[in-house]
C-alpha cells in the first residue's frame, strides 16, 4: 500500500500540465493534474498518515495545521484561478489514489461540467453591510445626568428606540443593496452574519452575501456599492473578485438571482 493519498484542490477545465509546473501544494509537494473526459482535477500527493480518517478528525481541531492546510489549498486554487476556470473543492478532499480520482471524474463528469459552465466568465464577490451606530450628538446628550426619575425613563426609552430603529433602518438599506446587486448577479449565497467579535468591527453586521457575478458587470456592481458610500445608516464593504468558493457546490441553487 502506498503511503500517499491524492489530495484534490479543484476541478478545472483545459489546464495545461505546464501551467501547474512549479506550483507547490500541501507541504510543498508538487501540484499535478489528472485529466479525464475533458475535466481536470488539480491534485497533489498527501501524507496518508495525515489524512487517514481518525487522524484527520483530530487534525481539523488543530488550528495551526488547519491554517497551514487552508493557506496551501487557497494558494493553489488562487494561483490557478487567475487564468483558468476553476471550481474549488472543499478543504481536505482526499482520494485513495489518482485512479480513484479518475473514477470520480468519470462518474460525475456531467455534474462537474455543469458547475464549470455555471462559473465560466463569472467571479465571486463578497458584500458585507454594517449598521452605522448612532450619531455622536445623541451619545453626548446621554452623558449628562438625568434630572429626575421620569427624565431617566424618558431617556432610556429614547435610547432603546434609537437602537432599534438604527438596526431596522440598516436592515432595510441592506435589503436595498442586496436587491440591486442580486439583479446583476447570476447567483446569490447568504452567509451567516458574523459576530462583532469575529469580524473585528464594533458596528453590527446586517448583511453578509456572496454573489456570482458575470465579469462584464463588475463596473455596475462597483457603481451600486459606490452609491452607498456615504449612506447615513450603513457601511458597505465589497471584496473580490474571489475564486467562486461559495458557488462550487454541485447543487444548482440560484436563489434570488436572475440570469443575465
Amino acid at each position, binding site marked *: 500500500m502506498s503511503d500517499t493519498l491524492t489530495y484534490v484542490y479543484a476541478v478545472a477545465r483545459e489546464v495545461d500540465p505546464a501551467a501547474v509546473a512549479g506550483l507547490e501544494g500541501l507541504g510543498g509537494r508538487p501540484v499535478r493534474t489528472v485529466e479525464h473526459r475533458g475535466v481536470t482535477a488539480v491534485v497533489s500527493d498527501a501524507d496518508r498518515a495525515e489524512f487517514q480518517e481518525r487522524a484527520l478528525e483530530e487534525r481539523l481541531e488543530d488550528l495551526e495545521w488547519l491554517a497551514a492546510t487552508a493557506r496551501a489549498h487557497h494558494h493553489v486554487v488562487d494561483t490557478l484561478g487567475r487564468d483558468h476556470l476553476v471550481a474549488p473543492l472543499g478543504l481536505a478532499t482526499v482520494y485513495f489514489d489518482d485512479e480513484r480520482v479518475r473514477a470520480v471524474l468519470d462518474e460525475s463528469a456531467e455534474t462537474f461540467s455543469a458547475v464549470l459552465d455555471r462559473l465560466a466568465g463569472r467571479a465571486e464577490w463578497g458584500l458585507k453591510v454594517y449598521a452605522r*451606530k448612532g450619531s455622536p450628538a445623541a451619545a453626548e446628550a446621554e452623558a449628562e445626568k438625568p434630572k429626575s426619575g421620569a*427624565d431617566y425613563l424618558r431617556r*432610556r426609552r429614547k435610547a432603546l428606540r434609537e437602537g432599534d430603529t438604527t438596526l431596522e433602518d440598516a436592515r432595510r438599506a441592506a435589503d436595498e443593496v442586496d436587491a440591486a446587486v442580486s439583479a446583476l448577479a447570476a447567483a446569490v449565497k447568504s452567509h451567516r452574519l458574523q459576530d462583532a467579535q469575529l469580524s473585528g468591527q464594533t458596528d453590527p453586521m446586517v448583511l453578509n452575501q456572496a454573489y456570482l457575478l458575470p465579469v462584464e458587470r463588475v463596473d455596475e456592481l462597483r457603481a451600486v456599492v459606490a452609491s452607498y458610500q456615504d449612506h447615513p445608516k450603513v457601511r458597505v464593504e465589497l471584496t473580490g473578485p474571489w475564486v467562486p468558493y461559495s458557488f462550487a457546490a454541485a447543487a444548482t441553487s440560484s436563489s434570488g438571482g436572475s440570469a443575465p
Partner: protein
Amino acid sequence: MSERANRIEIDKDAVRRDLMKLVLTIVELLRQLMERQAIRRVDQGDLTEQQEEDLGTSLMLLAEAMDELTEQFGLTADDLNLDLGPLGPLLPRDR
C-alpha cells in the same frame, strides 16, 4: 509555606471575581428586563406621575449601583454578557 498560602489567596480572588461576574450578569439581565417593562407601562399610561417618578428613580439608582459594582470588580459591561452560541449574546450588545 507562605508561597503556597499566596497561591491559594490568588485563586480565591479569581473565584470570587468569577462568581461576582455571574451574579452581576444575572442582576443586569433582570435590571434590563425591569427597565423595559417600566418603559412599556409608562407607554401604556397606566401609571400615575408619582409612580412614574418613583419607578424611574429606583431604576436610575439601580443602574448607578450596577455601574459602581462592575467598576469595583474591574469588569466592563461587555464582561456581563454571556455568549449563548447560536442564540447570540444574553444581553443586547449595547444598552
